């Protein structure tokens, strides 16, 4: 087994006003050779004069990367001839870099790692040489721009991880305001050292990779180079120490022809600049410029504001965005709402307008006041979106817009009550229908009040008031196959059927309040093992229509037991933020067994939860209210009642205390840390038309495959699946993350090699309850290195549905992978 070592050398161009050793503007994008002077052009007799700001920024970065700071800053000359290097030596730091022994914490694919910083030093940039026909053209505008070189230890292992580190460093320097981090324009540059060797044998020969002009190229070049070196070693070859260039047109690294003698830089102390002592005053200035860095800020956003990992990542990507968010919260916005809007409608508008947050008319205070109007029901969601657009376009605040447009909703209960009374008195038939248990007229009544108020009634309050006046609540019961809606035939076999009439079932049931009304929707006659993508699409679109309709107090989904854990988690990914309770339930015994069936118990319990206050997705079975994700169907319900029962008919006899019957059928794995409500992962996709959603689900499902790993599993089998179009595997592996990767056809090895070539992703869950994090075994680490993503606490079923949901809303594979990495 091989081990790979990657170290990065990152050049950060400091955003000073002037160059590091002269007073020329540090704008290298200007007309060629305009920002040059005798000093930076290396004229005879000129001397460097160090820029205090550059020193400050350099120490600031070193401090932020937890380095030991040099008490005295010394410069050295690095001697080499090159036409773009005016003095033919570069003023740099060799003997005593200003920062040493630092580190940065990195989380990548759920693997936490402390990447050590070997050193940080300040130096001057060279000019630019452009090749044009039979000559080269030199522009020295960039010559002398302050450059900070950050050298990591070879603690990284793979290209993706190096890319992640680079991005984290980019965020860090942008947070500190010392660099704009633009890799395409070269203000952030990265070279890498790659070394592959047999595991345990330490570092191999070092190959330097250059010419990677974006973080994407860093990933691709390193992935390529690691595979290349490993292949050479596997063939029994050896790796020469050399410098290679990434060829972005051919997607390979190529040997750079160099002269052998070139690499004695003859460093010696720069005599022209006296050493700079980082005295107390200077260090205080540096301290005063420290800011909360992206990583701790993300953590704080999750722990303090209760945001999701992905929201925190979004908001903390740019300091200005995070600042905006916090300012909005300080101005009174609810953190979850502010986050939701900033990642949603605000970002959409910014994308469309191709601008950034700080350049728009939206201020934190304006957002906060908009959200507070929404929260207080002064406006509804649709109006809020329109108002947001107006704020951007008109540079004014929400209050002004709403007043001017007359968009404020009527939410005065007395005023609304008068409208309602009038409408109710004019529509006695509809009222009677409602009171008789038919939920349908609700929409009509709401519509009438809306009409009377010119659309300004606050819908949520309006519904509530009508319900209160008529004293009822509508629960929508969706029949989605399974035994609960099935019936046992004469021959004893259970066949799909329609759900029993719930209204009838609970008429007079003392546990069910009279105020509840039921609206039943049949979504199909099938047993739960027969669910197709079209069925799921139907379920999702129906739930969406239901929860957005004017007449919903809660939703119950009657489902089969067998696939409940799939549908429940899928519904969760789509509707975790539902404004009403959505309850999935099932039964072991067909519903037509009537009062003898567990279906009755479970439906009753579900209805009560659906009528309750706790929003979001639930699974109710027996007496338990389960989390919708990580649900495991662990024991067939029948086995409990089979004891002593004679004949099939006897099975449906579930009389008396049924606790024995329910016990242990379902269980939430890794229950700690699960939440019932969070921003819905696939909120966008639930708005799709049913046919469209069906075809997207079908497409997604044909590129996903779940495999339970077992001894002797053949890598070729997975490759055949790849041939058949599978791009994502959920691998249910052993323990907390091990699988066979040895050199044998009966291991995952070939599948991973081939997968890497084809861009196939592997997400790992465990066959046992536990957290998959790859931290325990060497085989697990190897899985990580080869690109497998540990799914943490998620079960196979939940990971699978998350993946499907992610594929519906993500633009590309990388976004899908990222979404999977952010799982609970």
């Amino acid at each position, binding site marked *: 087994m091989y081990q790979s070592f990657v170290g990065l050398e990152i050049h950060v161009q400091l955003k000073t006003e002037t160059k590091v050793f002269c007073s020329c503007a540090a704008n290298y994008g200007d007309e060629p050779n305009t920002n040059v002077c005798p000093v930076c052009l290396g004229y*005879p007799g000129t001397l460097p004069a160090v820029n205090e700001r550059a020193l400050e920024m350099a120490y600031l970065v070193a401090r932020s990367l937890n380095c030991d700071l040099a008490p005295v800053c010394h410069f050295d000359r690095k001697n080499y001839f090159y*036409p773009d290097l005016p003095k033919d030596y570069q003023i740099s730091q060799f003997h005593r870099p200003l920062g040493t022994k630092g580190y940065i914490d990195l989380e990548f694919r759920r693997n936490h790692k402390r990447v050590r910083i070997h050193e940080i030093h300040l130096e001057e940039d060279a000019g630019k040489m452009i090749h044009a026909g039979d000559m080269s053209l030199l522009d020295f505008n960039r010559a002398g721009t302050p450059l900070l070189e950050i050298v990591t230890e070879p603690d990284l292992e793979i290209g993706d991880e190096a890319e992640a580190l680079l991005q984290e460093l980019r965020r860090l320097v942008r947070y500190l305001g010392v660099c704009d981090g633009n890799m395409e324009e070269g203000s952030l540059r990265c070279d890498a050292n790659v070394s592959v060797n047999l595991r345990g044998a330490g570092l191999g020969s070092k190959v330097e990779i250059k010419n990677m002009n974006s973080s994407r190229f860093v990933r691709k070049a390193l992935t390529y180079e690691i595979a290349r070196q490993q292949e050479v070693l596997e063939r029994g070859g050896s790796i020469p120490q050399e410098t290679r260039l990434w060829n972005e047109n051919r997607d390979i690294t190529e040997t750079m022809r160099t002269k052998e003698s070139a690499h004695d830089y003859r460093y*010696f102390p720069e005599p022209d600049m006296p050493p700079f002592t980082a005295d107390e005053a200077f260090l205080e200035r540096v301290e005063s410029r420290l800011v909360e860095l992206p990583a701790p800020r993300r953590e704080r956003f999750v722990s303090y504001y209760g945001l999701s990992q992905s929201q925190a990542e979004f908001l903390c990507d740019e300091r200005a965005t995070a600042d905006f968010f916090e300012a909005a919260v300080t101005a009174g916005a609810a953190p979850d709402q502010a986050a939701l809007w900033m990642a949603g409608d605000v970002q959409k508008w910014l994308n469309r307008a191709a601008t950034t947050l700080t350049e728009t008319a939206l201020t934190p205070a304006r957002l906060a006041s908009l959200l507070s109007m929404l929260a207080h029901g002064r406006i509804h969601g649709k109006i809020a979106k329109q108002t947001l657009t107006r704020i951007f376009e008109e540079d004014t605040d929400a209050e002004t817009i709403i007043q001017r447009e007359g968009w404020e909703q009527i939410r005065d209960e007395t005023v609304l009550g008068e409208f309602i009374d009038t409408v109710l008195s004019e529509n006695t038939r509809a009222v009677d229908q409602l009171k008789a248990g038919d939920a349908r007229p609700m929409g009509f009544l709401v519509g009438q009040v809306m009409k009377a108020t010119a659309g300004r009634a606050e819908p949520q309050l309006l519904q509530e008031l009508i319900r209160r006046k008529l004293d009822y609540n509508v629960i929508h019961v969706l029949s989605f196959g399974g035994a609960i809606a099935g019936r046992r035939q004469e021959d004893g076999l259970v066949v799909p059927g329609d759900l029993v009439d719930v209204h009838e079932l609970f008429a007079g049931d003392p546990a069910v309040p009279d105020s509840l009304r039921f609206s039943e929707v049949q979504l199909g006659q099938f047993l739960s093992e027969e669910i197709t993508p079209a069925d799921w699409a139907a379920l999702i679109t129906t739930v969406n229509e239901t929860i957005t309709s004017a007449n919903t107090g809660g939703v119950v989904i009657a489902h089969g037991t067998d696939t409940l854990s799939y549908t429940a988690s899928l519904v969760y990914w789509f509707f975790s933020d539902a404004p009403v309770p959505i309850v999935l339930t099932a039964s072991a015994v067909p519903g037509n067994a009537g009062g003898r069936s567990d279906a009755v118990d479970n439906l009753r319990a579900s209805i009560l939860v659906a009528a309750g206050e706790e929003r979001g997705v639930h699974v109710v079975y027996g007496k338990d209210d389960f989390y919708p994700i990580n649900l495991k169907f662990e024991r067939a319900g029948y086995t409990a009642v089979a004891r002593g029962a004679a004949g099939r008919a006897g099975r449906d006899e579930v009389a008396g205390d049924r606790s024995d019957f329910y016990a242990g059928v379902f269980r939430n794995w890794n229950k700690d840390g699960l939440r019932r409500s969070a921003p819905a992962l696939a909120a966008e996709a639930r708005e799709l038309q049913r046919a469209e959603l069906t075809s997207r689900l079908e497409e997604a499902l044909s590129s996903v495959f779940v495999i339970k790993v077992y001894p002797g599993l053949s890598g070729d089998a997975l490759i055949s699946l790849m041939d058949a179009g599978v791009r994502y595997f959920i691998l249910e592996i052993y323990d907390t993350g091990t699988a066979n990767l040895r050199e044998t056809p009966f291991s995952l090895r070939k599948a991973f090699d081939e997968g890497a070539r084809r861009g196939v992703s592997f997400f790992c869950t465990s066959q046992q309850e536990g957290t998959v994090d790859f931290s325990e075994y060497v085989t697990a680490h190897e899985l990580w290195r080869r690109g497998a993503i540990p799914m943490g606490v998620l079960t196979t079923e939940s990971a699978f549905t998350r993946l499907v949901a992610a594929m519906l809303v993500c633009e590309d594979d990388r976004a899908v992978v990222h979404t999977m990495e952010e799982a609970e």
Partner: protein
Amino acid sequence: MWPKTLKNAPGQGNYLEFLARRDKSVGAFLHVTGSIRQNGGAPSDSGADGGNTCLEGVPVAVKDNIAVEGMPLTCGSRILEPLVSPYSATAVERLERAGARVVGKTNLDEFGMGSSTETSALGETNNPWDVSRVAGGSSGGSAAAVAARMVPVALGSDTGGSIRQPAAFCGVYGLKPTYGTVSRHGLVAYASSLEVIGAAAESVDVLEAAYAAMSGSDVMDQSSLDHPVPPPDSGATRIGFLGGELGLSPEVAENYARFVEALGDAGYETEEIALSTLEYVVPAYYTIASAEASANLARFNGVRYGHRTDYSENPEELIRKSRTEGFGSEVKNRIVLGTYVLRSGFQDQYYLRAQKIRTLIRREIERAFAGVDLICSPVFPTQAFPHGSKEMDAFQQKVADRFTGTANLAAIPALTVPSGLAGGLPVGMQFMAPPFGEGRLFAAARTIGEIFPVEFPPGMEPPWAADRE
């Protein structure tokens, strides 16, 4: 006398003609201005500089490794022959602000590398006392220009004795200031940690005025320094003179003895001192100087300015050929030597060791100044030698830097004073003072000047007299 000459110049034209005429035999100048800038340099930003009235209108010559805006800056090298300086050295600006007028650029050993001005690629400079002899170097042109009465003061640079030795050869005063007290901005770097701009002058007064005008820290040179306030006591009572076997020519030895005796006559307590580090001075000095030079001269590559080879196919060939064509052999020797002593594998043995020896030398000098106020020594073992001298080949010239190199390695100020003639040629002796002890040097020079007044070569009349030539 001098200021009036230039100031009252309807004779300006005559003065420039005088310079050209006089220089035919001396060859002190590489460039003489077509017209003297009457208002050179930036205007004074405060009234303070106005105090240096004794420099008002004074013509100065500037060694051609010090930048004067609009004038060549050749360093006596082919590689910089095409260059016109786009800026002025801080020292030059400050002198001009004090009223001085730059009249031209003087010859030097190529990039200051030599002790005879013979390594200049652009001209030969003769000793005004005897044109068959060298004027010394590397600031040979500046010392000769002063001795030949062409200017009262001329800027030079001193890396290992480059002002003091030609001053001694030509019989004028030559000051190597404390390292850093005169900004190096505009001085083409040879050995950055050792060198400093100074001057050769015909009198202590004009030398002191020039130094006062030039010195002080400069934003363009972060190694530059202000004199501490208050300055070290300018009076000296005890002078240590370097004793032991010094390897001097008979003429210099005899003159040295007489000079030391005269110090006693002038009222100084004299005592003989020895410097145990003396034998390391030249090796350490040349190691450091060559190392720094190899980097400092790397920038001359034919890309941005200066000599570019006629034909090359690629950047590397262009750089290699331009440098090979542009540098003279002594410069190449030192670049190769300096490159070698910095190479990894050799650096510890040579460069690093020399830097440590430098520490030893500084310590010893510090100790010596605990006992004496000034140190007196010869400047050079011989008087001016003939052009092309076999005895004084390039190597022997280097070995002979042993008395002057100490001041550069120890960063202390040193001053050459004329000590009379021997065999019709001048001899000069050197005072060294602790850091920032320039005042002490000037005071001692005035005292001893009573006994050894400056003398000028026969027939070398000053311009107001020479006008009648």
